[in-house]
């Protein structure tokens, strides 16, 4: 790390990074994307249940490069008291990203994006959890993103779902989701960072209660036609079935043998790209 003097710096030419100049082929003629996946495949997903001993329920999940940890506390006393409801539990979801989870450093103070994601995610879980069973309490869900590469809010939701089941909180269903969208005219499942930056990119995170296929989270960035939305929705539902199967597998794995109950260091290695 030698020090350059000021004058030297002005002499160096500005070179454009090659990547921004070439046109990327998001899906080639063989139907393969930049990272080798087909348009329907999700990135590999690894789920480990019960990683935070202090919490009532917890989960660690890797989805592609994304790494997320979720912990659930509750039902517990809802403080401040004036925010409690005498009819149901209040679901509080806190989504945060570690400073080192992104290429540039993220400001540790929660931004408006964090607040919005927290809000829509809490709303997704309000529908899933039998909140009427726990009046005057709070169910606190904390999610921290340690590493990110597109689709973090969906990864976070998926992780939190498993943590809630691990905490024994009664739910209508697990919540599972995927981000679908478009890059270069192709409808694709589970966009990665490059695909998110495509000139015509559409990013649509969607989460459902798998049994009833009720949509509990739906957001969209970009320009979609109705037909594209329907195509995307179909692909999404198929992909979500897989994600849901992986969630279930991870929960069962915790009880597979007595050793797993002591220190669950075992991760659930799965290939998340199988489409059933």
């Amino acid at each position: 790390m030698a020090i350059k003097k000021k004058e030297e710096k002005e002499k160096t030419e500005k070179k454009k990074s090659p990547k921004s100049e070439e046109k990327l082929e998001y899906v080639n003629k063989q139907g393969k994307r930049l990272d080798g996946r087909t348009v329907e495949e999700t990135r590999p997903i690894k789920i480990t249940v019960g990683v935070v001993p202090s919490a009532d329920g917890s989960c660690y999940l890797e989805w592609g490069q994304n790494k997320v940890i979720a912990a659930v506390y509750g039902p517990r006393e809802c403080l401040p008291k004036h925010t409690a409801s005498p009819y149901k539990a209040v679901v509080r979801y806190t989504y945060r990203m570690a400073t080192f989870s992104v290429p540039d450093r993220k400001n540790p103070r929660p931004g408006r994006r964090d607040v919005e994601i927290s809000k829509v995610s809490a709303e997704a879980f309000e529908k899933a959890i039998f909140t009427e069973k726990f009046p005057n309490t709070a169910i606190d869900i904390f999610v921290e993103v340690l590493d990110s590469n597109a689709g973090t809010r969906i990864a976070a939701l998926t992780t939190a779902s498993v943590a809630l089941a691990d905490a024994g909180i009664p739910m209508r269903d697990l919540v599972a989701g995927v981000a679908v969208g478009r890059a270069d005219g192709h409808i694709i499942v589970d966009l990665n960072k490059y695909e998110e930056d495509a000139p015509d990119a559409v990013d649509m995170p969607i989460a459902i209660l798998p049994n009833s296929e009720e949509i509990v989270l739906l957001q969209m960035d970009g320009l979609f036609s109705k037909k594209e939305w329907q195509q995307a929705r179909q692909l999404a539902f198929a992909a979500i079935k897989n994600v849901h199967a992986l969630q279930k597998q991870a929960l069962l794995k915790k009880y597979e043998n007595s050793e797993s109950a002591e220190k669950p260091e075992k991760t659930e290695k799965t290939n998340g790209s199988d489409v059933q």
Partner: protein
Amino acid sequence: MKKIIVPGELVSSERKRPGDHVFLQNGRMYSDVLGILDDRPGEVSVVPLEGCYAPRRDDVIVGVISSEKATGYMVSLNSFTQSFVSKKDVREQMKPGFVISARVMDVNEMKEAELSQVRVFFGGEIISVSPVKIPRVIGKNASMLEVLKRGTNSTIMVGRNGWIWAKGGNMPLLISAIKKIEAEAHFENLTIKLQDFLALSNKSVRPQMPAMPAAQGGLRPQLGKIGDNKMNEDNAAMKPEAEALGKNGMQDDSDESDSNGY
């Protein structure tokens, strides 16, 4: 191995009564928790593998006095709200930090319980396990509890809320034995396993098993029914503090009653 199901999983497509942790949706029945399927002729329910304690009438619990009010005391008992015991129901003066056992007399919509039949315990310590595993700690006919007491020489009081008060004897051994039960609660033949475990760690335990029914492994968990004649007989034989188990939890076989111990 019993069938483990996740929240939202279909439990039965037959026409049955939905039991604990089972809900009806569009004519079909689903589980609302991560737990073990209990599918019986007239009813299907799920026994949760995790979760905090929800007070039920007639449960005997182990709690800790958290504060004193004008007319009674607030009691912490591993639930999401505290419960209350009236001063009229208590003989002695109590202070925050006292460990007690008590019976749940009534539960309101807020899941707050009214407690009575209070006993105070001094010394000893509280071992905490997941409440859903408590029936396994007691065992059929209190068989597991016997094994624990004999294997460690400790005095033990089991609360349905997941808190176990214990004093004396080989405490570290008792704690590891209880943790072992908690970790393997969903397996068969647990009582025998624990006997062996304790015998190994403590050569003075003689394997004396209470009479077990012929068929053991592979049976589904069956839940005791309150009001069974057999249960009343067993109850009479126990000390007054020992209470019948409510309809809850995992057991080895048959529908015998269990005591909370002591």
